[in-house]
């Protein structure tokens, strides 16, 4: 068996699981519905803003149930995964899902662009933000992968969404003491290090925030966090053993 054969089997397995989960259809369909609604009720520009702000969630939702549930299921204890090959399969899932989500997002952005051109508008100036969204999306995949080494089934995604909701509530209830941060996000001018660090912490939890202006420099933070999460997950999987708890 060559590594090429094994890669083909791994990709096929990951695709079969993704396909069976239906989330690869449901998440883009829901996003499409929101974008269409925004266009019909408001404008094409609003629809593009909604798309750019929300499409990184396609990456997050595709990243549900990546590692722990499968490792504990017993299904990896078979001839396909002998000699520790189950670790390679679990490690490849993240990059594979990120590629699927990126392809879906690209297709949707292309569709939105064509629809805009047909309507006499075009969102190509937003290509930079779309690129930032891809960075945020890949970070979501890495974060979901890392969390799924501890959390079972889709609870990794749920944990991110709940944490984001809690963070937004915190901001709402403490808005008067956070005007500096909100102003900086609005203007793109960072008065001090504290404000920058506050934004970096917020972006680590809600990476979509880097699309707000767009804030290219902060995308470097997401790239660094993606690499960190990927290698952390890899280290955990390398030590992982199969079996039910």
């Amino acid at each position: 068996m060559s590594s090429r054969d094994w890669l083909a089997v791994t990709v096929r397995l990951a695709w079969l699981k993704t396909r069976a989960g239906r989330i690869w259809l449901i998440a883009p369909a829901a996003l499409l519905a929101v974008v269409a609604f925004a266009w019909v009720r408001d404008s094409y520009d609003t629809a593009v803003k909604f798309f750019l702000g929300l499409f990184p969630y396609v990456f997050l939702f595709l990243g549900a149930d990546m590692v722990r549930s499968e490792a504990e299921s017993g299904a990896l204890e078979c001839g396909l995964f002998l000699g520790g090959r189950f670790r390679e399969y679990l490690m490849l899932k993240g990059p594979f899902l990120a590629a699927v989500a990126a392809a879906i997002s690209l297709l949707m952005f292309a569709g939105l662009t064509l629809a805009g051109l047909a309507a006499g508008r075009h969102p190509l100036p937003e290509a930079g933000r779309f690129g930032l969204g891809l960075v945020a999306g890949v970070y979501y995949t890495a974060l979901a992968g890392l969390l799924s080494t501890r959390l079972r089934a889709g609870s990794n995604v749920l944990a991110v969404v709940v944490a984001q909701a809690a963070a937004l509530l915190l901001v709402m209830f403490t808005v008067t003491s956070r005007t500096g941060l909100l102003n900086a996000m609005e203007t793109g001018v960072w008065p001090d290090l504290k404000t920058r660090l506050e934004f970096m912490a917020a972006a680590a939890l809600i990476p979509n925030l880097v699309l707000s202006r767009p804030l290219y420099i902060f995308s470097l933070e997401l790239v660094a966090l993606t690499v960190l999460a990927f290698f952390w997950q890899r280290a955990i999987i390398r030590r992982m053993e199969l079996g039910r708890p």
Partner: protein
Amino acid sequence: MTGAVLEVRGLAKSFGSVRAVKKADFTVRRGTITTFLGPNGAGKTTTLRAVLGFVTKNRGEVVVRASRVGFVPEQPVFFPWLQGLDLVRLTARLVRLLPDELERRMSDLAPQLHFDRGLLPRRAAAYSAGNRKKLAYLLALLTAPDLLIVDEPFSALDPPAIKDVRALFLALRDRGGTLLLSTHLIAEVERICDDFIVIREGVVVAQDNLARFLKTSNLGSEAGLEKVFFLFAG
């Protein structure tokens, strides 16, 4: 004796403070059926899982001199999103079986295992325990392994299937294949067993050729594998 296809030296595996396998030393000779015996909790399954790479050994060495290893777990579990056919295709892809050869092997193996090929388009996880076991055998044997490791080979199988599987084991051995069978059902393997290994409290305490051991031991001419088991593990 045609050389060892599997050598395990000084294998140890702990789970936290529990020492599941303390010291496993054994070899499996090529072209033999070797039975791995031991009471419940002796460390049989953990030893196999360490040999197969499902858990990481703490100490020791595992040398496999087989180009293709097959494995059948005690209670096969399949992903709920996979059909039996997906598993067959993935296994065939892994070992680069061309469609004609795959069909030939399926036509050969499925009747021998009394496995209904009509089940293949269904989700494998929904099969009965017996059919899951048969599918696991089918997948393992499709790859034409030169070392087949089976944990509890007869669990979930009915008597006719046990008979068929025993015949398959003999056929595989006659073609030069090697089998390592971990089991509690001593009577079922006695007739086909060449060598035995006994593990007790995480330590391999005996290994020998069964016929030779019975000839040289003082267990008596009527003795069998069960007496060997009780001698070392009882």
